[in-house]
């Protein structure tokens, strides 16, 4: 009987010592005469349990143990007999699929994540991979676009633009060359879903982009990945090479006569390059200066050609939509927010990680039921949703459901689904100051409200902190926020006021 030991290989597991755990299993199992097969799977995304080891001692059931924090834990596990079918241990969590935090989720995009070996295309196919592309290769381009439209999928990067409409625009454009560009510049604090996709199920992204290529008539694709993700770069490049070698990318995809080439490009530590036009400039080898819109990138995009620019999660949702049918995806969610959202619980949270849930789930359910409240045990005071440009929500707003429109009505944004929890030790004036300082550090500099406004914002907040001319400076801060919202070229300057304004509106005591 083969004993299989699974030790995750994503950046979080590695940051907590997973390589050492894997080495320990190989070394110590050899000493005890066990013949194990080691698989470096992706992470399930339950980060409070990482490194999360799974052991199948031959009966096909993967028993989870975690967090396995060092050699002493591995020794203890082996000594207890976990390689011999014994399933009891202080770290034992039972069959991995029965962990409540996984059972509570609706995993569509993340269905394979944590299950498979991200370096194995065979594993990908054995778990339903490439069924979407197989269907797309049998369909005409318009039918693919229609399926994406019918699914109700909206851009998962933050702006939530209907994906099918964007694809239709590029499909309809006439050009000798079109491009597919994936925005993997996941710079928002509190987000790591794109990273998990690229590290744990890279072929899914390749498949989604290839389908987009067929839909739009584009033969070239680029993934722009931030340089802060070296593990993702390594695993994703391996996936491109493997897919190319096995005919899933290239001049003749699986004998269909269709072409699609994919290139991985690495950013260079510039937050603004997550803004799509800045990203295109960067891909062209320039400073990441934001472009004015119109023209839309769908018509004048990369190298001036019609271009689909979507986030990792958007492309990653597409194979499932094609494979299972648009209606299956649409039936999840509510109102105009359809399907599922991979929510990332982060910051001061006990059980942080990736939770894919249908739209409509209340924020409080996520934070209290799934997340288990704060890691510190203190009460939750503020929650920032949607990255550094997202509003801070007070306790009274935590009943908001995950829904693009309802968040917008509350002057908040769902963005890329990052949820950062703060306990009652947070100083909201400091957080507001940080938002302005971050904007000053990362502004591309093209428009004045963002470039100068953020610097003035830091100064005004400093004066408020120092109690200089308090009423006047509060009024000035509010005016400055208006100017930045109304006058900035892109979301960097235009949305930095969201966290700032929410901080002084909901937490006025911190500004006194």
């Amino acid at each position, binding site marked *: 009987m083969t004993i299989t030991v699974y030790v995750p290989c994503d950046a979080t597991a590695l940051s907590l010592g997973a390589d050492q755990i894997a080495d320990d299993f190989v070394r110590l199992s050899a000493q005890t005469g066990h013949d194990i097969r080691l698989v470096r799977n992706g992470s399930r995304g339950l980060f409070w349990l990482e490194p999360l080891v799974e052991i199948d001692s031959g009966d096909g059931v993967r028993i989870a143990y975690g967090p396995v924090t060092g050699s002493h834990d591995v020794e203890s596990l082996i000594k207890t007999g976990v390689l011999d079918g014994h399933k009891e241990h202080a770290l034992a969590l039972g069959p991995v699929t029965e962990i409540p935090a996984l059972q509570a989720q609706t995993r569509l995009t993340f269905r394979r994540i944590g299950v498979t070996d991200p370096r194995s295309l065979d594993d990908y196919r054995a778990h339903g991979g490439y069924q979407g592309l197989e269907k797309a290769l049998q369909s005409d381009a318009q039918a693919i676009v229609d399926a994406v439209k019918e699914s109700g999928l909206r851009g998962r990067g933050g702006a939530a633009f209907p994906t099918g409409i964007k694809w239709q625009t590029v499909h309809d454009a006439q050009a000798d060359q079109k491009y597919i560009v994936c925005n993997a510049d996941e710079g928002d604090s509190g987000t790591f879903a794109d990273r998990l996709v690229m590290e744990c199920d890279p072929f899914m992204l390749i498949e989604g982009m290839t389908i987009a290529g067929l839909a739009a008539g584009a033969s070239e694709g680029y993934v722009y990945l931030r*340089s802060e993700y070296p593990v993702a770069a390594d695993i994703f490049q391996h996936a491109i090479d493997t897919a190319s070698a096995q005919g899933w990318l290239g001049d003749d995809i699986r004998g269909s006569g269709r072409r699609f080439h994919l290139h991985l490009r690495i950013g260079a530590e510039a937050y603004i390059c997550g803004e799509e036009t800045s990203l295109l400039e960067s891909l062209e080898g320039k*400073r990441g200066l934001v472009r004015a819109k119109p023209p839309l990138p769908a018509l004048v995009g990369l190298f001036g050609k019609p271009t689909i620019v979507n986030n990792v999660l958007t492309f990653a949702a597409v194979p499932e939509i094609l494979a299972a049918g648009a209606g299956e995806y649409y039936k999840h969610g509510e109102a105009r927010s359809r399907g599922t959202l991979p929510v990332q619980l*982060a910051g001061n949270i006990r059980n942080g990680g990736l939770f894919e849930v249908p739209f409509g789930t209340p924020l409080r359910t996520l934070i209290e039921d799934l997340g288990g409240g704060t890691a510190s045990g203190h009460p939750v005071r503020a929650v920032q949703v949607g990255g550094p440009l997202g509003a801070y929500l007070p306790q009274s707003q935590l009943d908001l459901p995950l829904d693009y429109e309802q968040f917008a009505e509350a002057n908040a944004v769902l963005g890329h689904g990052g949820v950062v*929890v703060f306990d009652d030790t947070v100083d909201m004036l400091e*957080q507001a100051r940080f938002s302005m300082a971050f904007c000053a550090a990362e502004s591309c500099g093209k428009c004045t409200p963002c470039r100068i406004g953020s610097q003035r914002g830091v100064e005004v907040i400093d004066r408020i902190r120092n109690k200089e001319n308090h009423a006047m400076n509060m009024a000035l801060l509010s005016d400055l926020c208006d100017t930045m919202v109304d006058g900035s070229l892109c979301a960097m300057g235009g949305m930095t006021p969201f966290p700032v304004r929410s901080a002084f509106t909901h937490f006025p005591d911190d500004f006194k």
Partner: protein
Amino acid sequence: MQTPSPSREELRTLIDARRDEPGALLPLLHDIQNTFGYINAEAVSLLADALQQTEAEIHGVISFYHQFRTTPPARHRVQICRAEACQARGARSLEAHACKRLGVSMHGMTADQHIQLDPVYCLGNCATGPNVRIDNRLAGRVDAARFDRLMDELEGEHR
């Protein structure tokens, strides 16, 4: 990191390998910095020639991105995440501790040129912060004690 002064020939070989790719400048800057640790004046001049741009344009791109540098680096780069999710888990005090421990301020290099300390805005490990990146290695759940152990390892190899 060792930083041999690159020869003109070595630079030419790197540049020629991918100068014809569309939008080649960023990949080329990465190749040069990954190989030599930084991008020197000669590289700027050769890049300008190869890509038919001015040296000012090349410099403009280098200076836009935090990652690119035009002076020799320290042997190791230590980055501390300063973004919100890590702040919520104690990154501000870790940053203060790191500066004190290494005797430098943010963006500073130790006197023996062994370690450069930089801030970073998010390493994507936001549920297990505070996070520190040492060269290409990520460390999560870093408190002051773990930071000291990580620095002991780095400094130990130097001695």
